[in-house]
C-alpha cells in the first residue's frame, strides 16, 4: 500500500512541477487536489495541508507556486523517510 502511495505521489509531484513550468493552472490545481486526498488518506496531514494550500493558491504567481512546491517536496521527503524507516 505504501508503494502505491509513493508511486502515486511521485507522479503527482512531477505533474505539479510540470504545471509550474508551463504555467498550467488547471494542471496545478488538479494534481494538488489529488495529492491532497492521498496524503490525508495516508495520515500525512501536513503534506495534505500544503497541497490544500497549493490547490487554493491556483492563481498564485509562478514564484509563489515554486515556493509552495518546495514545501510539498520537502514534506514529502520527510513522509517518505519516515515510512521507509518504519517509524509508524
Amino acid at each position: 500500500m505504501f508503494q502505491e502511495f509513493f508511486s502515486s505521489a511521485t507522479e503527482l509531484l512531477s505533474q505539479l512541477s510540470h504545471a509550474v513550468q508551463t504555467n498550467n493552472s488547471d494542471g496545478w490545481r488538479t494534481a494538488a487536489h489529488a495529492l491532497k486526498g492521498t496524503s490525508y488518506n495516508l495520515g500525512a496531514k501536513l503534506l495534505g495541508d500544503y497541497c490544500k494550500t497549493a490547490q487554493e493558491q491556483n492563481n498564485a504567481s509562478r514564484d509563489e507556486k515554486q515556493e509552495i512546491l518546495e514545501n510539498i517536496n520537502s514534506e514529502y521527503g520527510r513522509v517518505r523517510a519516515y515510512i521507509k524507516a518504519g517509524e509508524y
Partner: protein
Amino acid sequence: MLVKSVDRDAEKMLMRTVNECGRLPAQEGLILFCAFSKLQDFVSSKTLNETLKSVLSDREAECYVCSDHDTFIYWKSSVKDEELVVIKTIQDDYAQAFSSVPASQIFQVFDTRSQLEELRSLLLEKIEFLTTNTAPQDLRPDIPVLSPIQNVLLKKSQERRASRSKIEILIVEDQDFSRKLLMGLMQKDHVCYGAKNAAEAVQYFVEEAPDIIFLDIELPDHDGHSLARLFRQYDPRAFIVMVTGNNYQKDVDRAKENGVNGFIAKPYSKQSIYNAVQSFVQSHLVTAS
C-alpha cells in the same frame, strides 16, 4: 441452424426487424427479444452465434451488437421460459463479459405479441441517444446520461438488492491509492467494486445495483455532484455518501441539494466509514420494517 449476426448499423437493422415482427400473424408463435447492456469488447455477435447455435439448434436467430455494446438477440420460441436457458448459457460461456448478477435479473425480455410498442419505443430512444452521444465532445451533455436499456435494467435494482446476503459497495475514486485504501477497509465484510471515473461508475451502478456508493467529487470525466444527482434521479433509494478532500461549504450545500445520505471529508477515520455503512444498515432496517 441459421444465425444472422449484425454488428454494423445494428440499431437500424434491429428496428427493421422489429417492424417486420409487427406484421407477422400471431400464429407464427412467440417472438422474443432479449436485450442486455454493455457486452464487453471481446464478445462480438459472431462469437455469440456459436453459443446460440448450441441452444437454439433448430431455429432461426438473429444477434445484434449495437455501437454502444448493448446487445439484442431475437428468435421465435414456443418453449416456456426458454429465454432463461438461452441467457444462462450465454452468461456461462462468457462469464468474463458479464457482471455476476443472476441472468434473470440483468436481461430484459420482450414478447413481441404484447410488448412490441415498448420495444419500438426503446429502440427509438436508443437511436436518439446514440446520435446525441456520438456528437462532438463540446456538444455532449455536461452530466453523464444513462442509455435507454440501462434505464430499463435499473428498474430491477431493488429486486436485486433484496435477494443478496452481503452488502455491496461501489467506491468511485480516481486516485488508485485512495480507492484501494477504501476498498481494503471494506472488502473483508462486504462485496466491493471500484470505479476510477464517472463512466465506470455508471456501468457498475446499472449492472451491480450497489447498496452503498462512496463517491468522490472531483473525477476526471464528470464531477461527483452531477453523478450523485443522476444516481438519485434514476434510483431514489440509492444510498450515496460523498467522500472528498473538498471540505468546502459549497460542496456540502450541493451534496445536500442532491439529497445524498452522507458527507465525509478527508482525512477520514475508519470509524467514519464504518458509521456510514452502519447508517445504511439502520435505514435499511427501518425501510424493511
